Structure formats: C-alpha cells, structure tokens
C-alpha cells in the first residue's frame, strides 16, 4: 500500500460525501414534491405537437468519424505525457524523438485535412432557384451624369 493509493482513497471518500449530498437532496425533494402523472403529461416534448415516433434513430455518421479520429489523437497525446515529464533532463535528444513521433502523426492530420474528413460538412440542400426576369431600366430613371467638378488649384 503506497502513499498514492491513500491519496486516491481520499478522492473516493470525497466522492462518497458528494453522493450523500445528492441522495439527501433527492430524498427531501421526494418527500415534499407532488407526484401526479397522467398520460399526456408524460409524453415527450415536441413543441406542442404529438411526438412523431421514437427518437432512437440512426444519426449522421459524421459523429462517428469524429469519435474515431479523436481516439487516435487521444492516444498520441497520452504518449506525450511521459515524454514531457523527462524532457528537461534529457534535452535535445528527447526533442528529436518527439519530432519524429509528431511528424508521422502530423502526416495523418494533413491527410485527413486534405481528404476533408475533419471538415464538418454542411449539407447543401437542392434549393429551387427563384425565378427572375430581367427588365431594362427605363432611360428616364437613370441618373443623369454629373460632370466632374474641375479641381481648382
């Protein structure tokens, strides 16, 4: 049993105290609040309309791609932490090691960038064009040309 475990133990103790706070809050609230549910009150909110179907639907794959790329970079960052703690003692050699490591990963970043996978794609809906007709402007409406005032020296 090291020093470190007891430090984490304190964190758990702290968490336990937090749990007590929350549970106390819930119990008090339960005792004093009303409880009168009926079917309509318990429908899902959809701006006053009847809710249309379940919300558990497939969503856009873009979120999934973001999560995939995140994992990769997260691991990269984690590898840098042990490196960062000894950087000062080791010096230039450590910098060279990290440059190679980060260089390879920057290639990945550039690849993604070029392929456009870290762009958040905005859908381009097919909007029908506004019909426009061209009319000639009547001559009478055109501004009469004003002669430029001569500059006086």
């Amino acid at each position, binding site marked *: *049993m090291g020093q470190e475990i007891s430090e984490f133990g304190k964190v758990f103790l702290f968490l336990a105290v937090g749990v007590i706070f929350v549970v106390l809050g819930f119990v008090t609230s339960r005792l004093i609040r009303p409880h009168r549910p009926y079917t309509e009150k318990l429908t899902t909110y959809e701006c006053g309309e009847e809710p249309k179907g379940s919300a558990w639907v497939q969503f856009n794959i873009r979120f999934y*791609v973001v*999560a995939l790329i995140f*994992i990769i970079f997260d691991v990269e960052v984690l590898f840098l932490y042990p*490196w960062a703690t000894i950087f000062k003692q080791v010096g230039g050699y450590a910098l060279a*090691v990290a440059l190679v490591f980060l260089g390879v990963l920057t290639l990945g*970043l550039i690849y993604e960038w070029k392929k456009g996978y870290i762009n958040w794609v905005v859908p381009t809906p097919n909007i029908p064009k506004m019909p426009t007709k061209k009319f000639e402007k009547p001559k009478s409406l055109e501004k009469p040309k004003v002669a430029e005032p001569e500059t006086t020296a």
Partner: protein
Amino acid sequence: METVSFILFSFLGALVMVGSIGTVWSRNPVTSALFLVLNFFALGGIYLLLEAQFIAVVQVIVYAGAIMVLFLFTIMLLNLDDEQALKEKFDLQKGFGILLGGVLLVEVLYILGLKINLPQKSTTLTPVEIGEAKNIGRELITNFLFPFEIVSILLLLAVVGAIVLAKKNFSPNT
C-alpha cells in the same frame, strides 16, 4: 496493510467480474456498454493497487473516456436497441466466436502449463518504479525507442484505416 490491499483487490476483482458478466448478459446494448465502462474503471483501480498509477489513468482516459464513447456512438448509430434484428445473423458469428475463444483458452492454458518465458525486453526497473510517468518516459525514449516510434506509424495507419472505413458510407465533398 496486506489485508487492506487484499480486501480492495477482492472488491475490485468482483467489480470487474460484475462488469464483464453484465456486458455479456444485458439485453440493452447501452447497458452492456456501461457495464464495460464499469469494468474498465475497476481494472484501473487494480492497476492502482499495483502502483501503476500512470497506466491506471491512461486506462480510464483511453478505454473509458475514448473507446467507449465510440462504442456508444456506434450503438446509437446502428440503432441496436432492437435486439430482434441482431438475432438472425448471429449463428455463424457465434460459432466462429466460440472457435476463437477456444483457441485463446488453449493458448492461455498452454502458456500457464508450460511456464514459458515469453520473449520480452528487459528493464532494470522494479515494478513499482515503472509505475511512475517519469520512468515510463525514460524507458520509452531509450530502451523502447523503436517501439515508441513504430506506435506513431501504427496510429497513422489507424487514421488512414478509419478514413477508408468511413468512406463507404460518407463522402465529405457531396
């Protein structure tokens, strides 16, 4: 102190078991995923008991914080809530899974039975020392320099792989 760490280990070990069994047994895929998070958390606790604090935290960050988020996304993406839809396809996969699991079991028993010394890079550090981030860093850039740099290439491949896989369903420029 020995007994305290034994009690802690038993508790965490039980949590790991509950997490794993819950992952396999629960009907709702989201519950499954959350049991797996519990499992990873308890595993992190066991690493702490072994004085490997860095690995413990990395375990939580990478597995519980990153990979399981991806799992949750996948579950929601595929709308796996309907368990009926899954049942049909699973016969072949189940057979294959049992086969692979059997091979793994045999492998583990083989290694345990023969007490083979697995090939490993030697480090002069004691298990307690290797738990510290500083020592891990030093080992990474001296003894294990080559694997460390290879990891970057592995991650690069993962980036490319992720994009190729995603490409099937998703093209960014349309």
